[in-house]
């Protein structure tokens, strides 16, 4: 027995390509560590600074509660308005992008490209672009959320359309119905539950995005947060962060309970 198994090596040398990838990865990783100037000394000082920040942040100062509430309200406005338009525009785009509903290959490729571009560019960069275009304020935030939502929702809608069972749409086609009627009569109803779930995820995502968009001046609570941090008013900042935390967790709970009911 042992003679036979000795012909099967316990270890095998990895393929040359695997060697190259492993060595390359290790080199990049070490160079990155070195470039970040990571030293025990800096980490120690960082911990001390963090301790001081926390010391100054506690207790959170809610004296500007009206301003915080107002900014949070604006953040929710940005998120909800942006995500509503985003989901709305995602439906036609997803129809054009899905292989079973798209009129032809050229349109499909263009639609997929539009979706891919909206997804690949991060929301903060969209916000920077729209701040240049429409100026500071919530409108830039709304436009950024629209683009970010399209990249997410249109992709998942179109994937859902492609998974829909063919039978019902074939049955409607066989009655002589036009293509758009078949899509609206069979494919959309069949995808409805999944689209609702995707849209709710988009809202959760949009609220988180809308919080940070203010950092680049696109309206909402991020503006307050960045001002408080820059003025070293850490107790104000702590209050804002707590409000954000409560709002995001609250909405996630709400959306997951809606989702359970729909599916």
């Amino acid at each position, binding site marked *: 027995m042992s003679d036979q198994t000795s012909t099967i090596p316990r270890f095998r040398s990895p393929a040359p390509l695997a060697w190259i990838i492993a060595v390359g990865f290790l080199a990049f990783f070490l160079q990155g560590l070195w470039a970040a100037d990571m030293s025990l000394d800096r980490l120690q000082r960082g911990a001390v600074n963090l301790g001081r920040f926390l010391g100054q942040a506690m207790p959170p100062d809610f004296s500007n509660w009206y301003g915080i509430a107002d900014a949070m309200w604006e953040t929710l406005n940005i998120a909800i308005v942006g995500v509503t338009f985003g989901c709305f525009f995602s439906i036609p785009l997803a129809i054009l992008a899905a292989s079973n509903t798209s009129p032809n290959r050229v349109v499909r490729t263009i639609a997929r490209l539009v979706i891919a571009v909206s997804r690949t560019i991060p929301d903060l960069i969209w916000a920077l672009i729209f701040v240049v275009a429409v100026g500071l304020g919530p409108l830039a935030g709304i436009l950024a959320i629209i683009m970010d939502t399209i990249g997410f929702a249109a992709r998942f809608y179109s994937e859902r359309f492609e998974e829909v069972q063919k039978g019902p749409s074939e049955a409607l086609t*066989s*009655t002589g119905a036009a293509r758009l009627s078949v899509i609206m009569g069979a494919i959309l109803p069949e995808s409805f539950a999944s689209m609702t779930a995707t849209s709710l995820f988009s809202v959760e995502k949009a609220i988180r995005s809308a919080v940070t968009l203010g950092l680049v001046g696109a309206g909402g609570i991020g503006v307050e947060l960045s001002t408080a941090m820059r003025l070293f008013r850490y107790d104000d900042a702590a209050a804002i962060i707590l409000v954000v935390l409560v709002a995001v967790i609250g909405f996630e709970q709400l959306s997951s309970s809606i989702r359970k009911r729909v599916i």
Partner: protein
Amino acid sequence: MTDPAPVLDVSDLHVSYGDLAILRGVTFSVGRGEGVVLLGANGSGKSTLMRAINGLAPAASGQVSLDGVPIIGARRAPLRKARRRMGYVFQQFNLVPQLSAFQNVLFGVMGQRPLGILNCLNSVARGEDRERALDCLDRVGLADRAQHRPTELSGGQQQRVAIARMLMQQPSLVVADEPIASLDPKAGREVLDLLWRIVDDEGLSMLCTLHQLDLAQEYGDRVIGLKAGKVLIDADTDSIDPARLDALYEGASRPEDATGAKTAAA
């Protein structure tokens, strides 16, 4: 009984999937008011033939015409016009599962109303269409289930809703692709009784695939037997020799069997 001009005329129809020729020159016709049963083993090309008749499967050559209107090679608008007069009943019912039975029946007129779906959604449909949809459901004995979704109905009830949708369409030809293959024998017989009764009452023509030889002989005026993509039998039900029907299911009944034999010989 049969009108000299047939409702459905299929001539030398060829359909291929890739390199595999499924239908190899199918020719037959269905007369007005005639009920034809299509028999054949699994894979003999029955479903492909049904799909090609409706234009759902692209044909390589040959012609299908409904009331003299060509379907193969037709542009989109005339094809849709021809499809309106053809009621299709599927093995898997193919109702939209999220919508009520009533809404599914209303969809039967989707192809006939301007703006399509925008004129046959329950909330906006014309009064007479809604009345007729309920009437169709009543004809299949399911008026009381109008607001149920298909998932809340049994298989036999779902197929009856699909028959009501077909009836709503007011077709001149009914194409039924193994309408009872997913049902148990009792429900299957009830559905087949209902389907044939409606077809007779309305004076429709019917092309129906079945797997049961006894049912074929009981219901059909005429039997067409398909074997390996060709018509092997086309005869009135009364004059048919049972041994010939059995032959449909023996030996090389599928197109790929015949192709295999050919390539082996080559």
